[in-house]
Structures are given as C-alpha cells and as structure tokens.
C-alpha cells in the first residue's frame, strides 16, 4: 500500500468578489491532480511559478482545504479527520519551507523551537526534552550547544538545518520540502541536499520535493510529476523522465536549463510568449498557447493523462507523433577527466578533516 495517495485534487481560490460577496473569478490553482507516494521514496513536483505545486503540498497537509478530491495517508482518509485526529496526523507529515529566514520564530531559541513539537505531541517527557533536542541537532549536523542561540545568529544554510531538525523532531514518515534549497547559495545547497538524502537513507523518510529546478530534482527524486497550470502533464520514474521526456512542456523545461558545459551541443526548445494566468487558463490543453507542436485538436479538447505499461504517463494528444527528444537531452560528460579527479580529491579531503558541527556526525539510531 502506498504511504500517500492523492486522487483528483481540486483547489480554486476566489480571486474577485462582487459587492455582495459572490465569487466572480477563480484562480484554478490545482485542477484534478492525482499521484501516489511509497514510503521511503521521493516524489518531485516540478513546474514554474503559479503551476500549483506549492498549493498541492499545502493541500496534502490540509494546511488549506481542497474543494474536491481524496487524500489517503496509510489508507486513512485525511479529509474525514476531525481537529484532534488531524493534529495527530501532523506528527506523521511535516513541511520545510523555502525561506529559512521567515519560517523560524525570531523570539524563540533553537532549543525552544525544537522542544515545542515534542511538547505539543507529548512525545518526550519534559525532563528528557533537552537531551532529545541535542540528539536532533546532532542529526542535522549542528552542535548541541547551539540550542541556546536565536535564529538570527545563524546563516541561511544553518537555519535550513534547524527547519529540518524541527520537522524531524516528531519522527515523521513524510516530509514536504517546498523549494528547500532555492534561497541558498550554491555551496550551501549541496550540503542541504546531501543532508536530506542521508536522512532519508537513515530514517526511511518519504519526501514530496517541490522545486522549479530540474537539475536538483534529477539528483534527489525517485519519481517526478511535471505540473503546468494546476495539472500534471507528465509523470514517471525519474530515470525514465530524464532519459526520454515526452510532454512538450517537460522537454522545454529540461532544455531551458543552462548547462555548466561551455561546448555542450544540444538543441533548445524556446517557448514563445508568456506563462498564461491560472485565472483564465487556455481552453483545451492548457499548454497549447506555448506549445511548438500544437494542432487544432489541442485548442478545444483537453488531453487525459494516459500511462503506458511502465507507468510513464503523459497528457498530450500527440505523444505518439512527437519527434525523439534525443536532440535536446544533455549528454553525460559534463566533467572533464581532470575535473572529475579534482572534485573527487576535493570531496575526499573534506570528508577526512570535517570541521566539527558542520557536517553530520555519527548519529546512529538517535531517533529510535
């Protein structure tokens, strides 16, 4: 049984009301989204601003209520839970936000921030909480003595570690990571991505990883769902999607990422025009205004998300007729032999002489 199953999720926000409070216009933020996630795996939701990926992540936690659809967590219907049961569920699913500067209470010490969920869910007796907070801090690579400090004393990367620690405090099965590395500098980004992967391996966590960056997604995801204007247009195992993207939108996204390889020869799909507004999505296929392969049928009839035998699903009328994606795919070989050796030496050396408190120390079985 899947850990999380989402069926036909819909959320329309009211964008404009009449004088008497009647809704005049809706933003169709999420319009019929379905997916499932196995325990211990990572599903990435990918798309551009306004595609609904963050809304989906909040709906899954019931931070906002869906208009239609079903969400099952370990078989339980989440939408049927009352307030008490919902609070109990939140112990099993947590969220990490993009901006580590805004998501930590500046008036609480790190120790208080981490002890609060323990107290709320009555997980650890008051006397043992300090000890537990120290364990969690070690787990995310921070020194226990930092528990007495306030968030403003930390850098962005360290704050994101604290946010991860807070999510881990309740020993969840699922963590939703909403653009967790977008606000961070490149070198810090890799520390957090490595940390997330290590924690997943060690604790068997499932992640929903919301991101606009396909390179990051390729690194971390097992399964990918590409969203455009409130709908999933393509979903597949990560390897399959990156090896042969089918939907014209997935291809455009993939080919739009600049490669750090000066001589890379590949064709790029340049989309014309702007991203349409979710307030008034185009009729038919919602991508048709920007699609290079558009035909008459796309303008009137919305394509269904159809899966092949291997579970690679695409919502496009022309899936079978599209040319091969080989020309736009980046070929391996981004690393020259010299660079490979240098990076290997760089990493080996840093593994050896880690400065204390910056990386994960041995924290075996601290959570059980």
């Amino acid at each position, binding site marked *: 049984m899947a850990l999380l199953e989402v069926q036909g999720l819909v959320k329309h926000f009211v964008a404009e009301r009449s004088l008497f409070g009647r809704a005049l216009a809706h933003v169709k933020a999420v319009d019929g989204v379905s997916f499932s996630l196995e325990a211990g795996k990572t599903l990435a939701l990918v798309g551009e601003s306004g595609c609904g990926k963050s809304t989906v992540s909040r709906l899954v936690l019931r931070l906002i209520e869906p208009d239609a659809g079903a969400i099952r967590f370990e078989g339980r219907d989440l939408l049927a839970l009352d307030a008490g049961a919902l609070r109990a569920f939140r112990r099993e699913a947590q969220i990490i936000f993009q901006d580590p500067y805004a998501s930590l209470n500046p008036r609480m010490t790190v120790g208080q921030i981490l002890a609060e969920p323990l107290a709320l869910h009555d997980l650890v007796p008051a006397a043992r909480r300090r000890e537990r907070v120290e364990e969690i801090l070690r787990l995310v690579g921070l020194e226990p003595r930092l528990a007495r400090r306030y968030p403003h004393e930390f850098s962005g990367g360290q704050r994101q570690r604290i946010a991860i620690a807070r999510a881990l405090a309740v020993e969840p099965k699922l963590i939703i990571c909403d653009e967790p590395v977008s606000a961070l500098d*490149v070198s810090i980004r890799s520390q957090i991505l490595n940390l997330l992967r290590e924690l997943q391996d060690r604790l068997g966590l499932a992640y929903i990883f919301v991101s606009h960056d396909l390179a990051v997604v390729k*690194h971390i995801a097992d399964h990918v769902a590409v969203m455009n204007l409130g709908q999933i247009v393509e979903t597949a195992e990560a390897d399959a999607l990156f090896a042969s993207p089918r939907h014209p939108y997935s291809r455009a996204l993939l080919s739009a990422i600049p490669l750090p390889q*000066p001589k890379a020869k590949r064709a790029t799909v340049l989309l014309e025009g702007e991203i349409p507004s979710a307030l008034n999505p185009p009729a038919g296929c919602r991508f048709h205004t920007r699609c290079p392969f558009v035909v008459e049928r796309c303008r009137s009839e919305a394509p269904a998300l159809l899966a092949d035998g291997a579970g690679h699903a695409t919502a496009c009328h022309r899936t079978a007729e599209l040319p091969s994606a080989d020309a736009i795919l980046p070929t391996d070989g981004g690393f020259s032999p010299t*660079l490979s050796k*240098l990076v290997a030496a*760089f990493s080996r050396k840093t593994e050896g002489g880690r400065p204390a408190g910056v990386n994960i120390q041995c924290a075996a079985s601290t959570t059980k």
Partner: protein
Amino acid sequence: MSTSPLIEIEDLRIRFHGDDGRVTHAVDSVDLSVANGATLGLVGESGCGKSVTSLAIMGLLPKQNAEISGAIRFDGFDLLKTSDQTLRDLRGNRLAMIFQEPMTSLNPSFTIGDQIIETILRHRGGSRKSARERAIELLRRVHIPSAERRIDDYPHKLSGGMRQRVMIAMALACDPQLLIADEPTTALDVTLQAQILELMRELKAASGAAIILITHDLGVVAEVCDEVAVMYAGEIVERATVDELFSAPQHPYTVGLLGSIPRLDHRAEQLATIEGMVPNMAQPPAGCRFSARCPFVLDACTRTPPPLVEISAGHLSRCIRAPLELLVS
C-alpha cells in the same frame, strides 16, 4: 584579448564604514579588463563583492560610507575620479546596467514608454516623436509583441519576463559600449530565463557591446560568457576562458563550486560540499581567504595572502598549490 581593453579595473578596493565604526572589506585588489565585444562572467556567492564591483563601475556606491581606491579606466576616463556630471552623461548612454529585480527597477507611476523616451532625450536629444519611434523599435528588438501599443502600458501590466525585456530595451536605448547585467535572469522562471539569455546572445552579436554578466549560476556563465572571473570574499581567485575554467579549474574554490552543483549532464551520488563559512570581512584572515575551507590547505596558505598568478596563458589563479592537476596525478 585585444591590446586596448574597453574597460580596465586596476587594484580596486572598496571598504564600507559601518555606523558602529566597523570597516568591512567588500572588495580587495580587484584587477579586471574587458575587451570590446567580449562577455565577462563575474561569478561568486552572496557577499563575495561581485555586485559591489559593478556598482563601483557605475558610480552608484554611497559616497558617505564607501571608501574606494584604485582606478577604473573607461574610454579615457578614470570613472573613480570623474565629476558627477560626466558620470551622469556616461550612465545610460555609453555605460548601461540591468538589475536583477525587474519588479522594482521600473518606476510604477510612468509608462514604460515615458521611461525609455526619457533616457533617449536626456542623452541624444531630438524630438519626442523621434524618441518615441526609437523606443518602439527598441521594444521590438527585445521581442515585445505589439510594441506600438505596449509602449503606453504601465509596468504593473507587464509580467516579470516582459519587464526584464523593457529593462534591457532601456539599457540599449543609447547603444552602450558596456552593459553590466546583474543577475538578469535570477528572478525569472526557467523558460523565461532561456528567452532572455537567447536575447542577450542576439544583442551581443548585433551590437558588439561588451558585457559584464554577474551571476551565481555557472550554467548561465557557460552559455553566455567568453571569459570568467570567480570572486571569493572580495577577491578574484580565478580568471580564465570559460572552456578552461570548466574543464581544468585552478582554484580549489572553483573546484568546490563546480562539484557542488547538481547537473543534468553528470550523475553524482554525493555532491561535493564546501565546508565551513565565508570569513568575516570585518577581519579578513591573514593568509588565503579560502584557507579555512580548503581541503588542499598547507601551513604556508594561512600565513601570507597568495598573489593572483598566471598558471598558463590567460589563466590566473590565487592559489599557491596551482596547477592543481599536479595534486591528483
């Protein structure tokens, strides 16, 4: 590189004096030059001094608390010594800049046409009518659809990608010789970023202007630039052509950066990480500024600041252990 560069920065140092009396070393002994028609990428992480360097070129640093020394030579002027009047004549005319945030760098109470026309009239004079025609043509050049109608729109009516196009059109209004683009695509979605990068390549080919592109994204550098300067803690630590930098970097910081980015064209089980933190620039370390985070560090590195030396033709590194290949062969 051609014999006489368009712009030459020599020993640029910038210190900020804080209200509390603390002095921050934002930029230290930066030497740079860009030839006509070349594109230089200035790469580094937050706080490395890349934006401050560009603001110094434009003469946009606050005089009260920024202490600037060195020389910035542009077309016979030393930009650090010219009068405000001369600078105003140069800015928007022969020197132009595009900022990261297209949402805040346009004036919301004027139409985009007014803002472009103002630039043209200020530097080129002529009639308002001809300036308006020129503005429409510029909007067409940056691929704004139905430019003759759009010119009368206010900025709030345009999307982020459109606004960035307007910013570019404005920067190009007087055919600048040098265009500084500070993270021009960072605030944009990837498909829009691809459009803007394509546009920059087009304009580069058509106008022959030199470009300084400031970015943290090594992918953008590889796609657009000819040469790269990597900055760390206020200093240039490496300078090379893009091909050289991406295939055989000569500074450990560059190696760390290249190893730490997740890439579509390379599978890595574990990404490289650069441990530790950027030094406090109120008290920069005595030796190499990267030494505390460098896996290849020697005792000598922490004692004296390393000079920027040429490792091979046109490839400079501020590391006493370069050439780095010798460490791994």
